[in-house]
């Protein structure tokens, strides 16, 4: 019989696994080292040589544990580690070129998600006539997708000669990305849980319908939600089904409110512990894609990747995501040490 208690316990055990693994491999290396030390002064030169090689390798393993494996275990497990992500894309300066770049970025994130076996769905997209996308919402479902992608929020800048530019001049355009936490979808999409109250949400259908009912058979499925206390509005019109659009709109609203809640929690924590983790300002330029120099630079990390194609067509994004996670973990560790 698997009760809720069993499940909680199984989860705890699962989460303690890295600690157990680290301790086992540390103890193992330490024991081996102790066995190796006497052999360093063995009578047999061959044995001494072997022991000294072994000594070097084991010392490396142990210092790797001290410098990297153990500190990583200090990083508190993220409270948002189970959440999926919702990425909102908006083209900024640069007109149609920004929309074309947005379409490129959309593909980058879809491919990255697929490589991680996360499920993707474009739940809203506003396409331009020239093959670009003015704005879009991409849902990325899968445990850990929010934690991995959350630092992608910010302004992404591209410097390139647009396909549409005859004179060959380099343009600069931008796309803003906001990564929102996506909570598990419930059947009753309009129940607010602790994030919002249904009484605070105004639901409106778009456009007038004349007499409506049997008089009209035009599809008008657009829906707009307004969360009165925050003034947040969400419009959804991509589906033929009003029911579906409403469900989607509630999903986006919930994600935005959850984002506000998380941001506030982080700020409260930072206020009590002084400013250690740098705040993510969404209007901040975080990355530049420079085609002429075949370079992508992350401005927060000061890290440049000298192969733009690998990011646009391969798994280059993973390098940035890993580096951002490392940087975040280090900040967290500093915060802990500071608090000691």
């Amino acid at each position: 019989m698997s009760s809720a208690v069993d499940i909680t316990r199984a989860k705890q055990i699962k989460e303690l696994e890295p600690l157990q693994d680290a301790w086992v491999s540390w103890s193992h290396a330490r024991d081996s080292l102790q066995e190796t030390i006497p052999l360093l002064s063995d009578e047999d030169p061959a044995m001494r040589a072997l022991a000294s090689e072994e000594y070097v390798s084991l010392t490396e393993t142990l210092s790797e544990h001290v410098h990297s494996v153990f500190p990583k275990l200090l990083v508190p497990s993220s409270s948002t580690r189970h959440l999926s992500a919702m990425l909102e894309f908006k083209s900024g300066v640069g007109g149609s070129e920004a929309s074309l770049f947005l379409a490129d970025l959309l593909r980058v994130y879809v491919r990255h998600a697929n490589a991680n076996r996360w499920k993707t769905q474009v739940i809203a997209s506003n396409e331009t006539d020239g093959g670009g996308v003015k704005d879009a919402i991409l849902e990325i479902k899968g445990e850990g997708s929010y934690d991995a992608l959350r630092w992608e929020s910010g302004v992404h800048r591209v410097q390139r000669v647009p396909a549409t530019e005859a004179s060959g001049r380099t343009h600069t355009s931008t796309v803003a990305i906001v990564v929102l936490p996506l909570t598990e979808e419930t059947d009753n999409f309009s129940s607010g849980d602790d994030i919002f109250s249904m009484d605070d949400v105004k639901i409106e259908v778009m456009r007038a319908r004349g007499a409506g009912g049997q008089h009209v058979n035009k599809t008008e499925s657009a829906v707009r939600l307004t969360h009165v206390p925050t003034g947040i509005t969400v419009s959804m019109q991509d589906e033929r089904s009003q029911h579906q659009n409403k469900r989607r709109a509630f999903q986006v609203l919930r994600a935005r409110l959850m984002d506000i809640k998380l941001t506030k929690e982080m700020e409260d924590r930072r206020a009590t512990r002084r400013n250690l983790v740098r705040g993510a300002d969404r209007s901040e330029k975080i990355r530049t894609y420079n085609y002429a120099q075949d370079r992508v630079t992350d401005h927060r990390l000061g890290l440049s990747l000298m192969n733009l194609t690998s990011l646009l067509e391969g798994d280059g994004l993973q390098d940035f995501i890993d580096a951002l996670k490392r940087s975040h973990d280090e900040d967290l560790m500093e915060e802990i040490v500071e608090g000691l």
Partner: protein
Amino acid sequence: MFDHMARLLASLCTHLGREQAKQEFKWMKQALDKGLIYAPTDLSTMVQRRLRGEPLQYILGTTPFGPLDLLTRPPILIPRPETEDWALRLANGFFPSPTRPLSVLDLCTGSGCIPLLLCHLWPPGTTRAIGVDISPSAIQLAIDNAVRCNIATYDEVPRTLPQTNTFTPLLGDIRDSAFLGSLKPPFDIVTANPPYIPKREYVELPTSVKDFEDPVALIGDPPEAAQQDGLSFYHCIAQLLSIKGMLKESAFVALEVGQGQAESVESILREVAAFREIDIWRDPWEKKRVVVARC
């Protein structure tokens, strides 16, 4: 290729307006890409049909209705978002259980959208619905939709089968008293979206309604009726409801009405059948859309 697409979209824009055209064009492409269109066709043909005024729902062959995706077939009335809204509201207002099941009668059932939604949303083994329509092609569509939604279409479920909800579409004329005998009353819930458009308004309707959907499902009065106010069916339904043994104790009735008809239908119900409470529900566009009554 790109030019061809742009031209198709442009022609649709002149007809529907830019925003609507972009949406519908996208839905047509999606339906084709996903292989959701049953008849062999192409985008150009679909756009041509739309330009001639054919409803998008007939071209795509389906329409969403709450969580359901129902078949649409000319000339059977296409389920409207107004109906979807109140049917969902109705579904959310009841909590039937296998020990307290509900019997539902839907008059002028058309595609079967209302009883199918209830059968879909309520737990298995709690709902026995009957849908009546005068049109054989509507009854066929209702049966096909039940199959599509995995709802059993026979009334008597063999005891060997697990508990299930049933929807039985019946061909018949609700104005024919002989037919009423086959209905197996009493009912807990009676719903109807009867034809309610007055003749004078019918002639003014947009092409997509007037030239493609069945006038029998739209025009509210027979030509010989003295009153041409679109209310004939409500008189008939009220008569039917007032038959002894038709409704259970504290039965619930929901009748969709056209613009400006709610108060008239309310008084018809008040006069002909004795209801304790009568209320009017508005649709998402703030129109008085449904008259609901409880015994």
